[in-house]
């Protein structure tokens, strides 16, 4: 079974890459050859190889976002043959390895595409819109200091596990990129669900969901039509049950507000 580079041949890959010099400039596809790639190259290391060649040839290397290269920072982001992060289950682009491809493959490489994510250069997009969603309500409004002991409020293991499942989101935006509607429901749902499940976050749950839903529209994200492409593309396995939770929290808050039990316009919602 194993796995040393010497046991495999190398391969050549044809890359068809979206090149765009800057925001609001026209872009187009360019074709490059990635040569002598081993199965143990990560996808980004394959791009490194291509870029080194481009630089030496006096051309502009392909700009792409990346940082931790271990699948947790959420920075890497490119659509490989129509699928964000390349389509290996629970795998970010940086963790995708070239053993998933074969010699002679042609790979289309594109940036995340959605109105809320303007392209900055080549494969790099601006994902500030996701940060804005967190800024309106993706938090518990606690102050530093003056909080109770960590064990003062008990949290059942199932609730803690559920919250952790939701909190595993790395904010890469693949859900938006995969969504036919450019919606951010999985991202928002995961945060709403995490905080609504924990007693610490329940106090603000109605205001949070109200603000988050409004912010999604403000930021130019689309609506959800339950295609579940987001779940399929998510490199962290975030499930669409969190979108169901988002819908439930919304409906609950809406009902509570309409009967006058609560108000969702607070400082937290930015109104």
């Amino acid at each position, binding site marked *: 079974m194993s796995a040393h580079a010497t046991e495999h041949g190398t391969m050549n890959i044809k890359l*068809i890459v*979206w090149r765009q010099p800057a925001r609001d400039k026209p872009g187009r*596809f360019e074709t490059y050859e990635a040569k002598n790639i081993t199965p143990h190259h990560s996808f980004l290391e394959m791009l490194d190889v291509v870029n080194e060649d481009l630089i030496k040839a006096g051309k502009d290397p392909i700009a792409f976002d990346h940082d931790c290269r271990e699948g947790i920072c959420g920075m890497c982001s490119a*659509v490989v*043959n*129509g*699928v964000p992060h390349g*389509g290996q289950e629970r795998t970010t682009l940086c963790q995708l390895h070239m053993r998933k491809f074969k010699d002679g493959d042609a790979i*289309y490489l*594109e940036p995340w*595409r*959605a*109105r*809320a994510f303007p392209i900055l250069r080549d494969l790099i997009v601006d994902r500030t819109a996701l940060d804005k969603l967190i800024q309106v309500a993706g938090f518990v409004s606690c102050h530093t200091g003056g909080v109770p002991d960590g064990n003062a409020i008990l949290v059942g293991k199932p609730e803690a596990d559920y919250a952790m499942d939701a909190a595993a989101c790395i904010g890469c935006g693949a859900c938006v990129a*995969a*969504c*036919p*509607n*450019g*919606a951010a429901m999985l991202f928002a749902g995961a945060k709403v669900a995490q905080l609504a499940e924990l007693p610490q976050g329940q106090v603000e749950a109605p205001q949070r969901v*109200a603000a988050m*839903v*409004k912010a*999604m*529209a403000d930021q*130019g*994200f*689309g*609506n*959800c*039509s*339950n*295609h*579940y*492409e987001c*779940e*399929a*593309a998510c490199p962290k396995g975030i*499930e*669409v*049950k969190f*979108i*169901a*939770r*988002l*819908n*439930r*929290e*919304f*409906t609950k*808050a*809406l009902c509570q*507000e309409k009967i006058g039990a609560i108000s*969702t316009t607070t400082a937290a919602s930015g109104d």
Partner: protein
Amino acid sequence: MRLLSDSIGRKVVMAITGLLMVLFVVGHLLGNLSIFAGADGINTYAAKLQALPLLVWATRIVMGAAVLFHLVISIQITLENNQANPTAYAVDRRLRATFAGKNMIWTGLLLGGFILFHLFHFTVRSVPGLEIVQVHDALGRADVFAMVSAAFGKLVTAAVYVIAMLMLYLHLSHGIQSTFQSLGLNNSKTMPGFAKFGGVLSVIFLLGYGAIPVAIFFGLLAK
């Protein structure tokens, strides 16, 4: 928070109006299936229904409203979604989205058109070229069986209805399970169940409704 303009508010409205229409489709099917009990079956059913004008009109009003909300919001949402995702990828590859899911707006609009057609065809009876002559049976009741048999005896009519039922199948195979998600009832346990339920129900609709024009056209339904 706003039910009719927030993204999820409208989603909830879509789900509830959709669910109401599914309930109607269930009732309508149960009624229509009485045709398989022969002329007496469906004519009795029709007569009993006509004797309940309050129910008939209440249903018409509620359904009319449901269709209207469902239609307006879906057009609105589709336009918004197209704006939110204006550029397609070079490789069009979807991992999970189905043909039915992607074409909800089209199957929905066709169904909307079909509903109009159906109302003018059987209720108002004024579709040019496909006029239905009102007849009565021996007991003096409206002879629905005869009228339906006459209508579905024509290939065009039978074909239109069968195609429409295919649209209904597609629309509901995505729509029914989608309703549960939109109403926030899904979790990882219930979700596969709801999906199966939606699939089975839409097949039942297809077979149940579809059987009527097919059976009549091929003369399988004895008087």
